[in-house]
């Protein structure tokens, strides 16, 4: 699939949500969320626990069907689409709990990601060796993300931080236009956080990134734009400096009077 990419002056909008809302049996989890993701920019979605960040993620990636509102991806209305279709259009997400294929090796994890874009997913009569054509690209990604020493280890045997890195690698294998990362640094050690922050900054040079993140120093460091969510609604928007001065954000995030 190819999409026309108009070369606008400012950063173009690749994903936009208007009036997004989701009700669960009378409980409004997300209400009236407007969001614009720009090409080559990192956008952070922050907020206290239970603010609805992951729900917004699930709505945007169509793992949940919104009750209200509409979503446009690369100029196409995706409000009613299935999640796998949206992924094929170029929006790929990660999950809060590391999403790797535990009993497959690092290399096999990457192969699975590369199989579909390379038309090697449905052949049930071909031997596994037919997938070796994917290995050069897979190895490139493995090397890029520093996973080479673990290439033939099962994903289950990797440390938590490396699992998350592997997940990012498989996501990048699809060369997505829009990348949604759900707490990519949760539970990581300090060195790993710095490494992953570098990776994200790097990949965002050519694509839009939306990330849910609790680590505010990382958000301050790498994100161009911040949206703060509380009880399912947006309470502040802007760059980190602006948002962090907002009185409502300070109350919501740090407790009373931070």
């Amino acid at each position, binding site marked *: 699939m190819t999409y026309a990419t108009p070369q606008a002056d400012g950063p173009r909008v690749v994903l936009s949500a208007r009036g997004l809302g989701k009700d669960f049996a009378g409980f409004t989890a997300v209400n009236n969320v407007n969001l614009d993701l720009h090409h080559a920019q990192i956008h952070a979605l922050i907020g206290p626990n239970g603010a609805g960040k992951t729900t917004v993620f699930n709505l945007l990636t169509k793992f949940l069907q919104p009750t209200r509102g509409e979503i446009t991806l690369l100029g196409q209305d995706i409000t009613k689409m299935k999640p796998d279709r949206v992924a094929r259009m170029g929006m790929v997400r990660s999950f809060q709990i590391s999403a790797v294929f*535990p009993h497959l090796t690092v290399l096999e994890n990457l192969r699975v990601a590369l*199989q579909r874009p390379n038309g090697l997913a449905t052949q*049930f009569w071909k031997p596994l060796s037919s997938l070796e054509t994917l290995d050069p690209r897979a190895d490139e990604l493995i090397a890029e993300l520093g996973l080479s020493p673990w290439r033939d280890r099962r994903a289950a045997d990797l440390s938590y931080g490396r699992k998350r890195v592997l997940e990012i690698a498989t996501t990048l294998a699809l060369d997505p236009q829009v990348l949604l990362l759900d707490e990519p640094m949760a539970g990581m050690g300090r060195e790993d956080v710095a490494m992953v922050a570098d990776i994200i900054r790097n990949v965002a040079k050519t694509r839009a990134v939306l990330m849910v993140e609790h680590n505010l120093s990382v958000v301050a460091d790498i994100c161009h734009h911040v949206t703060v969510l509380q009880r399912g609604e947006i309470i502040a928007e802007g760059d980190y400096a602006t948002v962090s001065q907002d009185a409502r954000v300070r109350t919501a995030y740090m407790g009373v009077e931070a």
Partner: protein
Amino acid sequence: MAHGAAHSAGAEEGTVQLHPKAPTIRLVIVGLMILGLIFAPWFAYPIFVMKLMCFALFASAFNLLLGYTGLLSFGHAAFFGGAAYFTAHAAKVWGFTPELALLIGMTGAALIGLVIGLIALRRTGIYFTMITLALSQMFFFFCLQSPFTHGEDGIQSVPRGHLFGVIDLGPTMNMYYFVFAVVMLGLLVIWRFVNSPFGMILKSIRENENRAISLGYSVVSYKLGAFVMSAALAGLAGGLKSLVFQSATLTDVSWQMSGEVVLMTLLGGIATLTGPFFGAGIVVTLQNYLATSSFPVTILTGLVFMVCVLIFRRGLIGEFYASKLGQKLGYRTET
């Protein structure tokens, strides 16, 4: 399915040194098994070994779903028993040659699989399992009422016929090697299916369905493909059994049969290629030995199942794969 369990085992597995001739040894083991089956009729009752091979194929077809796709179907008797009826009917009433009759049985099973799969795969987990059970029970009552199955009597004295119209399958030895060839072919198909680009996607769905979706795979279509394939191969096993025993009865479509195949697969080891073969061997042997005694066989198989679940959860072959020796020979555990 087994996210946490593998974690602790991981560190140890890396330390086991692979035997330098591991691939050769693995080939020799498979070769010995095949040789064993070729010469089995000289040592064992051929009908018994044929029955065992039919069930081994059935369990292997089932394992394609449970072991390699992560779907627990509780309705596989519909495909096994359904194909037995179709094959028996084609051979007896229409006078088809055995290979064509088997093809009819397989096609029928695949079609039932398509219908059941399309409905059941709209749900996941226990709901999927329950729907397969419900639909296969509907099929059971269809078989009970339908005139062509002859209800409680079943289809009896099914002719084995002449293979390709030439080779008489009446003599036990001819039939034996025909069954042997078909079962080997079936297992070969399963092996290729599992070790193919498609099989890789199935495994990824088993491992993490949401991740597979987020990588752009329409997982329901892949599951349906595996379901129909599994149904067709289970059908091949059922059709073969109806030719061996020259009958097709309600036993083969009953829910107990669906349960038996789950037991065989778990006993032998899910997600292993040879596991279901051994699982089927244990269950069929138990049934055979206890058939003449007054001891109820279900109690014993139930006990065996409990021991398996409590002590060796990976199943017989699965535990071997996970052992030091298995690791040394380069076997991979996937559960």
